[in-house]
């Protein structure tokens, strides 16, 4: 901060950068100024009047210097009226009162007016529990309304777009949504019609929010006027547990919060991180979480045996033992192994996957499936892999990523590859046809949901989704970010790193990892960009890595394969 402005807020000395408004300056000294319409990432509207504060400036003498009172301190002149904190910038020597009797009285007045036409249907409203109107009602509201006239009735239960439900009676006309759609989402489609008490939020004729960022207006709505159709009437927020997580749907790696109750994730919302997603996230990522709660999830490792190809559940030690036996037998026969990893796995899993298939099993053909979609200029990245950089760092990708998959298909066709290990990818959709997979002697699939490939697999090892494990993702801008487990996995399914560690142990290699921290510690020893880090140091906001000099996967990819062939 160069040349900070010094001011006093509620008797506390504050130093704020020039141009900062009083709400933010008060935050610096731990004072909360209640507000509705102000949002740090949007322009200032100043229409809710909730952030009124008493602002005083030193009285200047004829020499333009502060006049001193009898106590030797500058004489402060307060304005005749209160000022809104959101649109008043800090000034040298300013004195601000945010809790004086005058300010409290003003807030009580504002609250009373806001509640005049509010329907007070909190028992029905989804926002109850995280509603600013409720919170400030407790602080500054009256127990009983003095308004005995009939409230203004406005449209209720109006769908604006396919994702959002609008209840105009609950709206307090803060215009956050209007500003968000105009300034951030780039679709100027919301506005107010009518005047005074009859002011109503509505869409422009023939328009409705249809960008990929619409649901952010549900987050920023301070009341329950805008609710998400996806979450509407599903759960009350006070039941939900918040877990800090990372969106796994593209390379941006938006910071999120998972809201779960009793092992079910009910919604996903963005979390502040100015280095990644500010405080927004896209609807594509936000709404793509239902697969976690899918009733078809694998609950245990299974083996395909018997004449009819029936599947039997196994215990983990038994599954590990049987796979280990088959792998050892095939390796003894000199069979070569191929493996396909996933860029949707955590870095720890990719690291162990690499250790297992490349270092221990000597697989020569290892690659990941690239996932590409349509990106936009804001948050949604065209690369839909949350951990492409992690995969590259762990060394389980070819250069370019996915270029070795046709080679693997060819090798299966020619009969050179008889064993394939697939982690979390439906390769039938990505270049290895089902009839080729049928030719394999051993197909081990680690996945969470059934698909064509898991039907063909000899062993299916039940995995965990991003919501069920700890670990790290490295996003497209090389930021290392931490995942946390929100819910337990179904049945005895478990995070993949545990499965890989067990297989490493079974094959006589070092897989003695008791916790994810042990895996991370091992990674920091091997992978240079992670040196000196641990999971705690990553924190909730992540750390930037210097991946510039990572060994290109192509070069490192061919080397171990060559040595294995030399040995064989």
């Amino acid at each position: 901060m160069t040349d900070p402005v010094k001011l006093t807020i509620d008797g506390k000395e504050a130093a704020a950068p020039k141009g900062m408004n009083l709400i933010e300056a008060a935050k610096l000294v731990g004072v909360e100024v209640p507000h509705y319409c102000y949002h740090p990432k949007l322009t200032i509207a100043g229409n809710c009047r909730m952030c009124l504060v008493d602002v005083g400036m030193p009285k200047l003498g004829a020499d333009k210097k502060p006049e001193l009172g009898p106590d030797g301190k500058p004489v402060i002149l307060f304005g005749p009226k209160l000022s809104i904190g959101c649109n008043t910038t800090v000034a040298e020597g300013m004195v601000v009162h945010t809790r004086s009797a005058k300010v409290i009285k003003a807030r009580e007045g504002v609250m009373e007016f806001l509640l005049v036409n509010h329907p007070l249907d909190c028992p029905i409203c989804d926002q109850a529990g995280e509603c600013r109107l409720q919170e400030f009602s407790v602080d500054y509201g009256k127990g009983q309304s003095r308004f005995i006239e009939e409230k203004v009735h406005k449209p209720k239960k109006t769908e604006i777009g396919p994702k959002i439900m609008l209840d105009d009676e609950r709206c307090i006309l803060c215009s956050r949504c209007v500003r968000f759609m105009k300034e951030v989402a780039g679709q100027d489609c919301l506005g107010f019609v009518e005047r005074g008490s009859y002011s109503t939020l509505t869409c422009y004729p023939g328009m409705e929010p249809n960008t990929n960022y619409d649901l952010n207006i549900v987050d920023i709505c301070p009341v329950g006027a805008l609710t998400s159709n996806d979450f509407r009437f599903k759960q009350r927020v006070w039941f939900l547990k918040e877990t800090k997580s990372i969106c796994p749907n593209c390379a941006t790696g938006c910071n999120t919060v998972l809201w779960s109750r009793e092992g079910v994730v009910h919604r996903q919302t963005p979390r502040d991180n100015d280095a990644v997603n500010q405080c927004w996230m896209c609807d594509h990522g936000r709404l793509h979480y239902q697969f976690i709660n899918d009733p078809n999830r694998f609950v245990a490792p299974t083996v395909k045996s018997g004449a009819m190809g029936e599947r039997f559940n196994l215990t983990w030690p038994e599954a590990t033992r049987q796979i280990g036996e088959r792998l050892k037998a095939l390796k003894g026969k000199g069979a070569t192994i191929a493996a396909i990893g996933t860029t949707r796995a955590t870095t720890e899993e990719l690291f162990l996957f690499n250790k297992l298939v490349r270092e221990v099993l000597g697989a020569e053909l290892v690659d990941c499936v690239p996932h590409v979609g349509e990106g936009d200029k804001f948050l949604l990245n065209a690369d839909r892999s949350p951990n492409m950089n992690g995969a590259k760092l762990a060394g389980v990708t070819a250069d370019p990523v996915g270029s070795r998959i046709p080679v693997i298909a060819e090798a299966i066709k020619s009969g050179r590859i008889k064993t394939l290990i697939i982690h979390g990818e439906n390769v039938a959709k990505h270049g290895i046809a089902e009839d080729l997979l049928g030719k394999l002697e051993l197909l081990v699939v680690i996945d969470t949901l059934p698909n064509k490939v898991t039907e063909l697999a000899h062993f299916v090892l039940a995995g965990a989704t991003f919501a069920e494990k700890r670990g790290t993702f490295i996003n497209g801008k090389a930021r290392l970010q931490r995942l946390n487990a929100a819910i337990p996995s179904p049945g005895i399914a478990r995070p993949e790193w545990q499965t890989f560690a067990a297989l490493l142990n079974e094959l006589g290699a070092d897989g003695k990892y008791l916790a994810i921290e042990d895996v991370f510690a091992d990674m920091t020893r091997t992978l240079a960009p992670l040196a000196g880090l641990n999971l705690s140091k990553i924190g909730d906001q992540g750390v930037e890595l210097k991946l510039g000099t990572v060994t290109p996967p192509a070069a490192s990819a061919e080397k171990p394969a060559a040595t294995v062939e030399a040995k064989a």
Partner: protein
Amino acid sequence: MQVERPKLTIWERTYLPQILHGLWLTLKHIPRRKFTRQYPEEKPPLYGAYRGAPTLVKDPEGRIKCVSCQLCEFVCPPKAIRITPGTRPDGSPDANVEKEPKEFVIDMLRCIYCGYCEEVCPEEAIFLKRDFAIAGYKREELQFNMEKLLELGGVQEDSIWKWKYKGAPPPDAPAAPKREAKVS
């Protein structure tokens, strides 16, 4: 501590005075008023704030009052209440209420009859009625579902305007106090 035993006389050592005294007490009670209640044929009287089984009530027009706000589920100390929220269908006369319970289960094996649910209910939809002898042959029988709870609850005459308040207050509502202009 040493307790000194009283020295008994020969008359006392015959135990006859004790036997006679006991017989006298028994005889004395024969003509008196009887206190034993012949339960279950004879039910005990239940007084004012008696808290029996929690039930769901309907309003005088037969509509479910509960809007599944789940406050009772939240406040319930033994976690006996489980609500699945649902939407009131469009076109139903009370569609403006928007929300209703899809399922409402009270585990009567868990319920401790504390009455917090009744106290917390903002819609006056759950009441502890006077049923107290809740028994069943199976555990499942004591999972009271919404149907059972509504049957137990019946209709509650209510004084809140929620249902009719779609504009003017109902005709039988108390008149709003007239506000007089303040002249200073």
